[in-house]
């Protein structure tokens, strides 16, 4: 995979993304880039489901939230370092998703989409009632928890770098899967599940596997993000709205492409930042996002990259 320029391009872009705010020593920029990076992770992994396998997961945020909870629980209750805690959270959530996947992926299309909403809401309510995780109030970190990373200020920079690393990993994973047998099978499922099965693609296994794969990095990112925030509580951890925004980002950039969801996430986040600061628009952020999605779905279902590829087929080669 490293013989092609694309992965190197990702690595270079990630280094730039990570180091620019560090050398510019701009905390505000770092915070805005961090949020964008989190969205890129969510969108890019969601794209494995929507863009590759053709399944809309409305409850994708559940991985992010659960990852955050598992990680913060390990950090507070068991005094773990955040890095192993986030990785373990990723593995745990991913394993859970694999189990769930075999069940709910028996559902097709709209039924699956509805069930994913149900899963997210059920888990949110479950956490609200789960006392070891602080119930409705959630888990707080004390400042001591940042000690292992050299104090709170240093920890903010470290988590930023880690999240950018996860972002790069998401894009590389997206690329690797796209260029693998597994990815080809997923694309076949996304195009026509019955035809794929007749062609020999083991559809139940692949669907469960991609559901699980799309859970791993968001769960790690959730761990890092909520560690950085110092607090996690059910409403923000399992916010259905964020889930949906991730879908908008995927559609905006171009589902099924590698860079599209990242591009969509970045643009959407910047657009939202602009709308939030512009007085006259701040109230209409949701309206604009909705109208945008409506227009994309009805008129450019391929998103930005899909549109480019359609009009300039040559861009397909270098802009994947």
């Amino acid at each position, binding site marked *: 995979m490293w013989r092609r320029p694309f992965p190197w391009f990702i690595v270079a872009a990630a280094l730039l993304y990570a180091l620019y705010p560090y050398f510019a020593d701009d905390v505000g920029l770092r915070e805005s880039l961090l949020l964008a990076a989190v969205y890129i992770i969510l969108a890019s992994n969601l794209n494995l489901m929507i863009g590759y396998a*053709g399944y*809309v997961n409305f409850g994708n945020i559940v991985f992010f939230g659960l990852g955050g909870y598992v990680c913060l629980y390990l950090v507070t209750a068991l005094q773990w370092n955040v890095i192993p805690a986030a990785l373990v959270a990723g593995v745990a959530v991913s394993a859970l998703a694999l189990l769930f996947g075999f*069940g*709910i992926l*028996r*559902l097709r*299309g*709209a*039924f699956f*989409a*509805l*069930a994913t*909403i*149900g*899963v997210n*809401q*059920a888990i949110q*309510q*479950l956490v*609200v*009632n789960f006392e070891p995780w602080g119930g*409705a109030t959630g888990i707080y970190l004390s400042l001591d928890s940042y000690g292992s990373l050299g104090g709170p200020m240093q920890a903010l920079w470290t988590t930023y770098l880690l999240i950018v690393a996860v972002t790069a990993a998401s894009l590389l994973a997206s690329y690797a899967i796209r260029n693998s047998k597994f990815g080809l099978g997923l694309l076949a499922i996304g195009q026509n599940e019955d035809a794929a099965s007749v062609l020999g693609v083991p559809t139940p296994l692949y669907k469960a596997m991609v559901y699980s794969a799309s859970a791993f990095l968001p769960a790690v990112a959730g761990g890092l993000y909520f560690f950085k925030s110092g607090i996690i509580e059910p409403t923000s951890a399992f916010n*259905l709205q964020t889930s*949906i925004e991730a*879908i908008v980002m995927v*559609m905006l950039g171009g589902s099924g492409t590698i860079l599209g969801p990242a591009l969509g996430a970045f643009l959407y986040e910047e657009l939202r930042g602009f709308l939030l600061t512009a007085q006259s628009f701040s*109230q*209409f*952020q*949701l*309206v*604009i*996002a*909705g*109208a*945008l*999605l*409506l227009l994309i*779905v*009805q008129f450019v*279902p391929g998103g930005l990259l899909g549109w480019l590829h359609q009009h300039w087929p040559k861009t397909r080669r270098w802009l994947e």
Partner: protein
Amino acid sequence: MIGILASVIDGILIGAVYGLAAMGLTLIWGVMNVINLAHGAIVVIGMFVLYTVANMLGLHPYGAVPLMIVFGFVVGIALYWIGVHRMIGRPELMSLLSTFALNMVLIGLGTAWWTTSPYNVQVSMPGVSWRGYTFTGTHITAAALAVVIAGLLYLLLYHTRIGKAVRAVATNREAAELCGIPTTQVLAMAFGLGVALAGVSGTLIATMFPFTVLSGEAYQLKSFVVTVLGGLGNPAGALMGGIALGLIEGLATPFMPLSWIPIVEFGLFVFCLIAFPRGIFSFTKA
């Protein structure tokens, strides 16, 4: 024991209103295979129509009910042309995203106008007392109105030309077209009808409970549970599913903390989806 019975009866009263909301969802699904994710937002429209009529215009609260039916029908037809028409016959996922986009726009507009703070409409209806338990007047009225509206829907679908055309299109769109039925207009009308039902259920809910712009989501999820219980695309099943859900809520309330109820509901929802994809009360749709 009587306490539980009272709780169950109250649950059934509320459940009838859930059933009405779900009827709107299921009618649209049954006729055009679209799952309307703007359903919750429409329920909220119904709530604020009540607020406008009762608190701002000072009219009788139940005057909002017929008003909402007409208004919902018009809004529904508009929404059909804006967000649904181009999705007919395209993959389900596209119509899911499209109706969800409508949902975002509606909720966004609502938030801008009403903010997300809670609203309450005082409706005074005398309750009924029985062995020391009082059944709230608004609950009884809402249930009665829900049943009446469901009855009207039945009359419309089974005893009017246009209603029969809706059923014909739902059964076999191509055959309906070959009979000379302008099926696209019928689809738009059916969407209007579904929206009117969802909206008016919101109006009735708002006579019973306080609400916010964001209340729709909870009721939308309840509608999904009901629809899945009753069988997607089956209005009669929806009313029964609604009552069943109300009954479950009523039965569970005395035994567990209120915050556990949604878990039971969502668990039931996911379980039913997987175990009975055609619904427990489903009648086979040919």
